[in-house]
């Protein structure tokens, strides 16, 4: 067995035994499951992408996506906050944070003692990040952050935020910079958590920065590096979101197949009817296609080959395929899909998150078209 299979098997066992049995409860409680968050840290999941010298597993994109896929098969909420803790919420802190910041925030985050969040989206712009208005004003001895961020995954429970700011309005995206803001900085205001359709075991809120002063060392990278830093992560974020989609599609398929074999109508299991068989055959085919696209993309990335087009295609296809799989799942389950006692409803609600995180399908199509030279 290679390390990829071993990782998959290990995460799958944890998911089957510890996450799937509680996934619906977590969803109903609509609360960030801190105990589970800590248990995942106890298995060393959050440091998986980081170097061995730092205590991580030095996982490449393929390994990381395998982990994300398996977690999403159990609970999209759990997979979403894990991905946040592994990648978007801590990556710049690890790479560009001072040794002191790393010691105070990154290490505890890896141990599950601190929660990370990533703030790009604003009320005035999600897809259109050029519209970011949160500003970082530098003075002689510190930086003052002012602005309004929304849809912040982990916003209500986070201990620190990586915030995309505008440092020089005249420069547009060339004036972007990322800044590190601890939650306890005066001027940081976290609003009430959102009431939302899916991924209900993650908490999301707005985070407002009212003249929040942070030391100058809290700037990640040189002036004007924000857009480049973000671009350097987009492939990873997209293919990871595709892996989350694949995990959820598999969960919907597995549940559908089992149900199709068990549920009887007109004296036969419904899986004996061609109408249901066609749904399952299509789901299985699209899952296989997603799998091939995702891991072809990660293997390219792992060899250092640019893969923006492939990552965008994988995310676009896999997230839409997950939506279709969850949709069919709710049809196969009949009325029982409408009840929160069964997982079908959760799958259906959770898939919608995949349409926005990591870029909407529409903007991904725009990007793919651009890659095609159009």
């Amino acid at each position, binding site marked *: 067995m290679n390390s990829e299979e071993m990782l998959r098997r290990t995460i799958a066992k944890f998911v089957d035994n510890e996450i799937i049995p509680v996934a619906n409860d977590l969803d109903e409680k609509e609360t960030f499951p801190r105990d589970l968050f800590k248990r995942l840290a106890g298995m060393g999941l959050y440091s*998986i992408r980081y170097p061995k010298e730092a205590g991580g597993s030095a996982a490449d994109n393929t390994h990381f996506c395998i982990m994300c896929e398996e977690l999403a098969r159990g609970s999209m909420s759990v997979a979403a906050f894990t991905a946040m803790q592994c990648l978007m919420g801590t990556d710049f802190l690890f790479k560009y944070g001072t040794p002191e910041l790393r010691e105070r925030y990154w290490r505890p985050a890896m141990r599950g003692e601190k929660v990370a969040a990533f703030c790009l989206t604003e009320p005035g712009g999600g897809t259109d990040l050029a519209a970011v208005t949160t500003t970082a004003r530098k003075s002689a001895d510190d930086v003052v952050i002012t602005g309004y961020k929304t849809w912040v995954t982990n916003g209500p429970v986070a201990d620190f935020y990586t915030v995309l700011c505008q440092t020089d309005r005249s420069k547009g995206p060339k004036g972007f910079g990322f800044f590190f803001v601890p939650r306890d900085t005066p001027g940081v205001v976290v609003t009430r958590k959102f009431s939302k359709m899916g991924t209900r075991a993650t908490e999301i809120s707005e985070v407002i920065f009212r003249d929040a002063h942070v030391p100058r060392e809290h700037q990640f990278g040189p002036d004007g590096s924000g857009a480049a830093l973000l671009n350097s992560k987009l492939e990873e974020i997209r293919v990871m979101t595709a892996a989350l989609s694949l995990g959820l599609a598999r969960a919907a398929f597995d549940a559908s197949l089992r149900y199709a074999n068990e549920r009887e109508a007109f004296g036969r299991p419904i899986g004996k009817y061609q109408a249901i068989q066609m749904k399952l055959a299509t789901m299985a085919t699209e899952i296989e296609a997603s799998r091939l696209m995702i891991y072809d993309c990660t293997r390219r990335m792992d060899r250092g080959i640019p893969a923006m087009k492939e990552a965008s295609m994988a995310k676009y296809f896999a997230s839409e395929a997950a939506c279709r799989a969850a949709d069919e799942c709710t049809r196969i389950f009949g009325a029982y899909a409408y009840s929160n006692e069964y997982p079908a409803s959760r799958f259906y609600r959770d898939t919608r998150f995949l349409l926005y995180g990591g870029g909407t399908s529409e903007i991904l199509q725009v990007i793919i078209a651009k890659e095609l030279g159009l």
Partner: protein
Amino acid sequence: MYRDARLGVAELDVIVLVKQVPNTAEVKIDPRTGTLMREGVESIINPDDLHALEAGLRLRESHGGRVTAVSMGPPQAMDALREALGMGADAAVLLTDRAFAGADTLATSYTLGKCIRKLGRFDLVVAGHQAIDGDTAQIGPQVAEYLDVPQVIRATRLEVRDGELHAERTHEDGVEAVRCALPALVTVTREANKPRYPYIPRLMAAFDPNAPIKTWGPKDIGADERLIGLKGSPTQVQKTFTPKLEKKVEKLSGQPAEMARALVGRLKERRLA
């Protein structure tokens, strides 16, 4: 055992025996040939052995020392040892060679015993009570015999205190508390603990070429070729089959008292009452 007179610290050298088995929850027996249909069935660490590993790791955590996992099996049993390292074992030894193949419990116990001797110092050998693919529960006791150390079988709790092993064995009608001198061998059951999940950075490090896993053959442990593998095995499995279960259902009818009398009669006929 290492003792520091001033600090009163005692470190434990623990050896855990680990077997890789087919996940029998998934294995079926071919009704025609009577053999196990192993194709496509995943291999796992024998469930009781996970509890043995957990017991060994907990002892190390409270006393310091080392845990070494030992497995005899085909090359792919390396996976079981990697998982053991992932859970926290400090080192591992894979006993693998064509000459070891076909071993019964006696030859296996001899091979494991030789390996333990070769490893040198140990305070405690921990093994699972039994393996799900053989269900003999013979390896632990036989290895203890070979090593000539005391054995505690089917422990449900264990700790080391004042240089002795204190263990509990749960029976239908109570709990037996035993204690014995070290070095010793103990086998544990599923009630002993809840095994931890592997720690991913350690599990991934177990795939490094310099991971602390040794691969030993008969020569490395100084085994007598006549006592290992098929040659060293007096027991040979002749046939594996699924016993046919035949059910006969008889419905009793009549008044409740009549039916009860008839039922007691039937039970008596079959000597069940």
